[in-house]
């Protein structure tokens, strides 16, 4: 089952591709699962909204020059004292429209989430393939490193990578490099699961006849790994990636909440929650509540989708 869906994903794209996917077992499972449809719809909506954020928001919250400090702390639905513009979800301490800030912040969160997931996927799958296929000392080395890393919480590893990267870079670069550093820090904290899964699947696959056949016709190990083994181990990787995306977004939010992530002038969801948290006791609830809700909904939707995908791709559950 796993290999079949893997083949499908790697199959030729054409007019029949979508229809075939719709008719497949996975497609059927999707059609009949309201949770999956709902989660996919919500995730899709959020992604679309963040992509078109600059069109559908009244303000660019990253451009400090457009903010009016006198709008600060405007309650939801009221007009600001400075600019006179109406703030649907209220304004934060800097006169930033909370609604605009959420969409722009979600965009940052999603971008870092996607980029770091791709990073850990490529890194982890490569190492896992090599470990599983080559075996021996290289395998032992890679897998022990993975074991060591898995014994720490991912957030600690991310903090460590972030701290070391900051220390190595000249301070003047910190601001521009925050995005890249966050991506690498979160990506590096999550590669071990991919490597473990892929190694296990690779060890099973490499003993199969088609791999022997490929070797017999004289292919070198690299093409065998990439063109023959990889497509057949890709199914579980997809599931891990989906669930990891939600985790990466939460990890980014945690780092930013702790103040080591995105700066307050370019807030991600975590930074917005950190800012809002200061006003927890003073009555300006909207600065904290709306970004937190957005984070919960986003993480929940992606997680539910990932859960469904895992069940749909797991033949044992059917």
């Amino acid at each position, binding site marked *: 089952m796993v290999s079949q869906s893997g083949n499908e994903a790697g199959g030729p794209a054409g007019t029949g591709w979508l229809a075939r996917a719709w008719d497949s077992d996975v497609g059927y499972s999707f059609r009949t699962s309201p949770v999956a449809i709902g989660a996919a719809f919500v995730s899709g909506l959020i992604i679309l909204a963040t992509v078109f954020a600059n069109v559908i928001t009244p303000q660019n919250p990253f451009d*400090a020059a*457009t903010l009016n*400090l006198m709008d600060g702390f405007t309650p939801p639905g009221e007009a600001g004292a400075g600019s006179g513009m109406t703030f649907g979800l209220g304004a934060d301490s800097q006169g930033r429209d909370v609604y605009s800030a959420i969409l722009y912040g979600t965009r940052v969160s999603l971008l870092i989430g996607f980029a770091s997931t791709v990073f850990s996927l490529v890194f982890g799958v490569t190492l896992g393939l090599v470990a599983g296929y080559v075996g021996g000392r290289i395998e032992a080395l890679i897998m022990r490193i993975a074991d060591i890393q898995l014994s720490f919480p991912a957030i600690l590893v991310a903090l460590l990578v972030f701290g070391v990267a900051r220390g190595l870079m000249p301070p003047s670069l910190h601001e521009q490099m925050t995005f890249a550093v966050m991506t690498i820090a979160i990506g590096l904290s999550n590669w071990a699961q991919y490597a473990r899964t892929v190694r296990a699947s690779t060890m099973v696959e490499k003993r199969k006849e088609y791999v022997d056949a490929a070797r017999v016709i004289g292919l070198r190990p690299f093409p065998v790994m990439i063109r023959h083994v990889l497509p057949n181990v890709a199914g579980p990787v997809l599931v891990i990636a989906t669930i990891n995306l939600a985790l990466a977004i939460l990890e980014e939010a945690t780092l930013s909440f702790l103040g080591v992530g995105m700066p307050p002038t370019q807030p991600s969801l975590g930074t917005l929650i950190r800012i809002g948290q200061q006003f927890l*006791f003073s009555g300006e609830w909207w600065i904290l509540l709306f970004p937190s809700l957005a984070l919960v909904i986003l993480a929940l939707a992606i997680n539910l989708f990932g859960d469904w995908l895992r069940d749909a791709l797991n033949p044992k559950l059917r």
Partner: protein
Amino acid sequence: MIHHPMKSGGVSHRSVIHMRHGRFALALSAALLLATVAADARPLKWARSGDSLTLDPHAQNEGPTHALAHHFYEPLIHRDFQGKEVAALAVSWKITDDPAIWEFKLRPNVKFHNGNAFDADDVVFSLDRARQPTSDMKGAITSIESVTKVDPLTVLIKTRGPNPLLPNTLTDIFIMDKEWSETNKVQKPQDFKNKEENFAVRNANGTGAFQLVSREPDVKTVMKRNDSYWGIGQFPMQITELTYIPIKADATRLAALLSGEVDFVQDVPVQDIERLRGQQNLRVNVGPENRSIFFGMDVASADLKTDNVEGKNPFADKRVRQAMNMALNRQAIQRVAMRGQSLPAGMIAPSFVNGWSKELDAFPAGDVNAARKLLADAGYPNGFSITLHCPNDRYVNDEAICQAAVGMWGQIGVKVNLVSQSKSIHFPLIQKVPPETEFYMLGWGVPTFDSEYVFSFLYHSRADKYGSWNATRYANADADKMIESLSSEVDKAKRDATIAKLWTLFKEEVIYLPVHHQTLAYGMKSGFDIPVDVANQPKMKYVSFKTN
């Protein structure tokens, strides 16, 4: 509240002692304990946003560092809550027949925490230590030429020319034990900006009202009452155990006070003052602090590293500085970022300070168009970009002020990249030689209540004992000479005229961009009444419990 709940710390401590005498004694004394301990064993948990940077008393001239140090160490003269000078380790002081020599009579029968006796040798040693190159206090006592011992309880301080204001400059110069310092090889102050460590950084041996029990930097510092303190009987001294806990996040710090986990919060977030006022069991005291908040710029380097202008320094042009000054809407910052809890400012000295005047403290109204025009005249019609360094755990709403200012400068086309970080990273950027920041936020308190202190640290060119906090690279030989003349000018009218002249010059040159004078809000359980200390260095030996 009639009966304070028993504080477990005090009870268990006593119990342990009594256990040694046997179970019978323990049982017998139980009732007695309840009565006596409740009356005299009083812990106080004191929270603030940031920690002391070091326990070495001469390594950092920084408010919270001194605020904590005042509990272990003592200067010759200190200030009470109102800012009045009070005799500490000196009992009397006077100018001798030579107007350049002061005589200090020292307090007899004073012991350091380790039991060593305090005498003139310790004073000579400490004042010499505070004038070493690695000391951050040297700028405060530039006028001292030499310190000599006459007898064990008499010290002469010779100044470079007569200095009638010498006592004012000694209130933060702490006295260490010479013998202890030599044993532990801390004769030189810690070189803080180069991250040096020494024994005195985590250990303290002073004459103060509290003794260090344990310290975990950025977590907590535990102190106990010094029961052989010389001031017992003179001060309330009711707190037996003092715990200092830095809590950075505003909401967490406030929650700690609301839940009763801490007894005293030295910096109530401005947004929460109203809420605390509504609480029955809590008290908020609000008052002005002797401190001004401002931005500094590199006004002299040929080129800036963090800007996007090649081969030129935009801040070197006075019109750019004026434009930056005009773009700052101080009233908006006061109303929104500070919720009214500040006094917008035009000079770096609040009204307590000799040299302050209403005219000098005036500031331009936020005028975007005029600022844009000035920028265009200076050759930057489209503005430029620059990096601003800002602390995020030092001053009231420091990060929020920086963010608001970034927006205001953005409106005149100056794109400011904000880097806000902890004060332990921020301050070395300013103090390093050469400084590693070209645009920064700083706050300055004036413990001497005289403008000379501001000039020596912030305006004098960086040389020898002067200008250690001046990261503007501003260097004006004439002004330097005038500043140096202040410490030996005896004629008050002439001295004040020089001060006025200097302030006018610096304001005209727009060396700094003052934002406001800070206002403080202390929050505490209603069992205490700790008034706002104008230097923001509350001394806990003065604190007493209300018995109602």
